[in-house]
């Protein structure tokens, strides 16, 4: 046994000397055999020949001997690897193209996969996240997720009492506390949490301590835990923050601790602050049983399935409905995996479009590499035939070729990881400008790495094996004689190569079409008529601390004051403001009330006087809203053209009245019951958030008549560089009230909002389309070159028989053109089916835009022709005499 091992080790480590000995030993045998024949009277040459023949394939014998050494698999793989590497080194052009192709395909996919993984398929940052569930109340029969609501305190307490399959049930409540510091004012993202909440999640503060049970009693609950990023940003990561006081909503809170980095909860933003949720006797009174205020999170006991938890909650819901019918009748309880609440955010189409594009690039890349391998395998048939004649077994040859492909794929995979790494960085950069949820977590992750490697290996196995299997089906004699075989395999080879090219062109057409549509979309967006002049405009948002401003009226007093000071600033020519986000449901005066669900509605905005003028909007009819439209004046409004077109077709809406049918969501209407509103003007549609996001009927109401409590977005028209005014504007606002938060100064880049949702997919898809074009060109060029090389003889004959250069050019280019046309036909058909999925991203161009399709087809054909040109010229320059001698 030991001997065996030592022998094997020697065979591995002293491979060269073993090989030399083997060679010597076998040669000695053949020589001795020859000597025997010489003694029997043969001539030395004859004797040597006969001895060799008798011995048979020396390579095969060596092979069998190596097998006896018991190190065959290891050493042969090493050998095959060395051989493969040598082969790859010998063809630097082929290797570079193949590796780069794979690297781009794999790298892009890895990056995309990591990105989607971070953005879409994130795992919650808690131990055993699969055990975490969210529990909602839901109206019986109400199926959609939007009908899922939080629970009342009493109902949660009852659930906590008799839960079976849960380790723990806890609750929390979202808060947006207002933080006022001497330096700034802002709203935080926070949550008030129940005593068992952090234990249930399995997260502890990294600094300081969690809440003590006594701190969940009303009166002791002025304590807070800070989120890590917030702690860094606001307090410079100072450790002595523990024990200090911060002012939230005008009340002092003592900081107890800091949560770990990356702790976020349910919303995708970093949680700034946690406070204890102290249930008051009021919260726990029966009257409050029907108020849906608390979000509930549970952790299932190990081994409990979602289904059994749901069953438990179903019976609990029945029990609660029986005990407290007034509050719970008709309500069910719904259990959902907390992870699934993340998947709910549908992936933006733009990301899907990019992901699809990356996959297409990978496909094209694979097709290309397959094609290259295929071309090589037929070129190498001779080499393989020689190896087979020397006694290398079929299995060994296949393995060798496979090893080579595998090496290629691994190189591509490794390079791909590098590409992916860069790609992820780029995507993460892009995501910073692009409010995708979970963008903090973007990094090249292990699964992406493995995904990437397996992709490359699968590619290698499939595409490396097919050609190598084909390659070993070589008729030995034929190939050694070389002529006849070449012709038959060329035909077969060209057919397959041609198919590959058709596939490649078709895929490229699909990609380039998508890119074309997106490019047209963004030029349309950039050139869209926005209905206002975005130059020299500064906008910023304000937020008024709710603990100081109880009503919209209080807020509006300060809004007026701020507006007056802004107007007085040097460099400001006009100032106004607006509050977006309202919705008006109405009926037209003098019309019968509409059927429920059929009511006309429009987006509503409350605006300050002079809003239209400040934006330089175009008034089509009637008048602008002015200072005269006060709270006591009759209610008036301005509508946009879309509104007029939809609800007053062929009629001038000015002087018409509409009657609100509900509160304008989010707007306090002091004139209850709603009075009819008189339309006093019509403006051309203005697209403040770009042509996509601000589409549709819109109505503008005087802020004085609808003083909403939502802060105000101010709009300034400036005579100077807009951003240069930020400091003076800030000072002006703070001079009215230092606790008003200012957010998001912007130059009103008109293009930002709409363009943003298309620039990333457009850029990415265009890059990929460019790659696809390049790869297709390489592929076409390769196939045509190969076929020209194969047909040199034939071309020589044709020329000898009087064919002109022109005819040869035409013949070769015709061949390429035929392939290109077939590919384009397939590609257009495919693209027509696929571009529908882009529809939501497009603006001003239909998914089947004929201009784009025709242009793309022409581009592809041009690329194909260009790719054919070089080999065609080579063919035309064939000298008939050399060509005929070529065989």
């Amino acid at each position, binding site marked *: 046994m030991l*001997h*065996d091992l030592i022998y094997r080790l020697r065979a591995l480590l002293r491979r060269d000397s073993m090989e030399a000995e083997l060679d010597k030993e076998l040669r000695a*045998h053949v020589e001795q055999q020859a000597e025997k024949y010489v003694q029997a009277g043969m001539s030395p040459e004859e004797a040597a020949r006969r001895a060799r023949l008798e011995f*048979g394939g020396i390579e095969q014998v060596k092979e069998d*001997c190596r097998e*006896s*050494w018991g190190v065959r698999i290891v050493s042969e793989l090493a050998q095959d690897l060395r051989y493969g590497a040598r082969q790859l080194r010998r063809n630097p052009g082929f290797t570079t193209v193949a590796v780069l192709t794979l690297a781009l395909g794999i790298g892009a996919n890895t990056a995309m996969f990591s990105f989607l993984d971070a953005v879409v398929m994130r795992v919650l940052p808690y131990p055993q996240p699969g055990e975490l569930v969210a529990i909602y109340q839901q109206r019986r029969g109400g199926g959609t997720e939007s009908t899922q609501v939080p629970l009342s305190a009493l109902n949660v307490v009852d659930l906590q009492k008799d839960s079976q399959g849960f380790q723990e049930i806890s609750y929390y409540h979202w808060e947006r506390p207002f933080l006022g510091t001497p330096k700034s004012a802002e709203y935080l993202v926070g949550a008030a949490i129940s005593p068992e909440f952090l234990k249930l999640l399995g997260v502890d503060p990294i600094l300081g301590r969690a809440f003590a049970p006594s701190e969940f009693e009303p009166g002791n609950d002025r304590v807070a835990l800070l989120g890590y990023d917030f702690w860094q940003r606001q307090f410079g990561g100072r450790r002595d923050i523990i024990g200090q006081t911060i002012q939230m909503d005008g009340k002092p809170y003592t900081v107890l601790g800091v949560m770990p980095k990356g702790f976020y909860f349910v919303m995708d933003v970093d949680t700034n602050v946690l406070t204890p949720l102290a249930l008051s006797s009021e919260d726990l009174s029966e009257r409050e049983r029907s108020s849906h205020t608390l979000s509930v999170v549970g952790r299932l006991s190990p081994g409990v399935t979602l289904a059994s938890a749901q069953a438990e909650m179903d019976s609990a819901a029945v029990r609660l409905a029986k005990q407290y019918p007034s509050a719970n009748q008709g309500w069910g309880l719904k259990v959902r995996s907390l992870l699934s609440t993340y998947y709910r955010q549908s992936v933006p189409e733009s990301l899907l479009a990019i992901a699809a594009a990356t996959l297409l690039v990978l496909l094209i890349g694979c097709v290309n590499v397959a094609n290259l391998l295929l071309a090589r395998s037929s070129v190498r048939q001779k080499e393989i035939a020689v190896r087979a004649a020397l006694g290398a077994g079929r299995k060994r040859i296949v393995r060798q070729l496979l090893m080579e492909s595998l090496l290629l794929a691994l190189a591509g995979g490794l390079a791909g990881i590098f590409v992916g790494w860069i790609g992820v960085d780029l995507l993460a950069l892009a995501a910073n400008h692009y409010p995708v949820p979970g963008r903090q977590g973007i990094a090249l992750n292990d699964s992406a790495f493995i995904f990437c490697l397996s992709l490359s290996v699968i590619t290698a196995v499939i595409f490396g094996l097919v050609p190598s299997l084909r390659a070993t089906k070589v008729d030995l004699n034929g190939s050694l004689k070389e002529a006849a075989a070449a012709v038959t395999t060329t035909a077969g080879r060209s057919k397959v190569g041609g198919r590959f090219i058709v596939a490649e062109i078709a895929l490229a057409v699909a990609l380039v079409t998508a890119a074309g549509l997106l490019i047209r979309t963004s030029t349309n967006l950039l050139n869209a008529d926005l209905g206002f002049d975005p130059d020299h405009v500064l906008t910023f948002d304000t937020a008024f601390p709710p603990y100081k401003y109880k009503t919209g009226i209080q807020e509006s007093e300060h809004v007026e004051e701020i507006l007056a000071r802004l107007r007085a600033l040097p460099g400001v020519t006009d100032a106004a403001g607006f509050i977006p986000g309202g919705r008006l449901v109405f009926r037209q005066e003098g019309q019968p009330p509409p059927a429920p669900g059929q009511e006309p509605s429009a987006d509503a905005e409350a605006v300050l006087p002079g809003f239209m003028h400040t934006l330089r909007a175009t008034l089509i009819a009637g008048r602008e809203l002015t200072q005269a439209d006060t709270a006591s004046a009759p209610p008036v409004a301005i509508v946009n053209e879309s509104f007029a077109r939809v609800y007053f077709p062929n009629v001038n809406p000015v002087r018409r009245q509409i009657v609100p049918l509900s509160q304008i969501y989010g707007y306090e209407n002091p004139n209850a019951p709603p009075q009819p509103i008189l339309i006093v003007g019509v403006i051309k549609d203005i697209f403040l958030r770009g042509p996509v996001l601000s589409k549709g009927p819109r109505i503008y109401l005087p802020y004085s008549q609808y003083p909403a409590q939502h802060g105000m977005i101010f709009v300034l028209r400036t005579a100077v560089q807009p951003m240069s005014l930020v400091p003076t504007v800030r000072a002006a606002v703070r001079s009215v009230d230092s606790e008003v938060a200012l957010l998001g100064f912007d130059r009103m880049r008109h293009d930002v909002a709409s363009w943003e949702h298309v620039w990333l997919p457009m850029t990415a898809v265009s890059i990929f389309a460019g790659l696809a074009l390049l790869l297709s060109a390489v592929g076409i060029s390769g196939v045509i070159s190969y076929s020209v090389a194969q047909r040199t003889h034939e071309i020589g004959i044709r020329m000898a028989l009087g064919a002109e250069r022109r005819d040869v050019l035409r013949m070769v280019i015709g061949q390429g053109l035929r392939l290109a046309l077939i590919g384009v036909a397939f590609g257009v058909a495919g693209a027509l089916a696929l571009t529908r999925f882009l529809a939501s991203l497009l603006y001003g161009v239909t998914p089947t835009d004929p201009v784009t399709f025709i242009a793309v087809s022409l581009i592809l054909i041009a690329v194909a022709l260009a790719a054919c040109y070089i080999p065609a010229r080579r063919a035309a320059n064939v000298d008939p005499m050399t060509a005929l001698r070529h065989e």
Partner: protein
Amino acid sequence: MTDSRIDLPQGTLDLLILKTLALEPQHGWAISERIQQISMDVVTIKQGSLYPALHRLERRGWIKAQWSMTKNSRHAKYYELTEAGRKQLEAEESAWRKLAAAVGRVLETA
């Protein structure tokens, strides 16, 4: 060469090699020559299987090898039986005799 040669049953080649080497150390070519001679050319060893077998036996430690000079002064790899090889040979030989006898009996009576 001769068409009337017998393909050796699996494992028999090892036995023949060991038996041949039991007489004296020998190199590959001589081993095959000797087996052919003794078996009166009935058994021809395919060169393709002789050397792998030798290497296998060497790996198992039943024979050991060293390079030395032949009578007509050429380098050759000489194999000789080890102690373990001798034991193995005895075991295989008796097993073979039993098998051959049993097969013979069946053939006679059947």
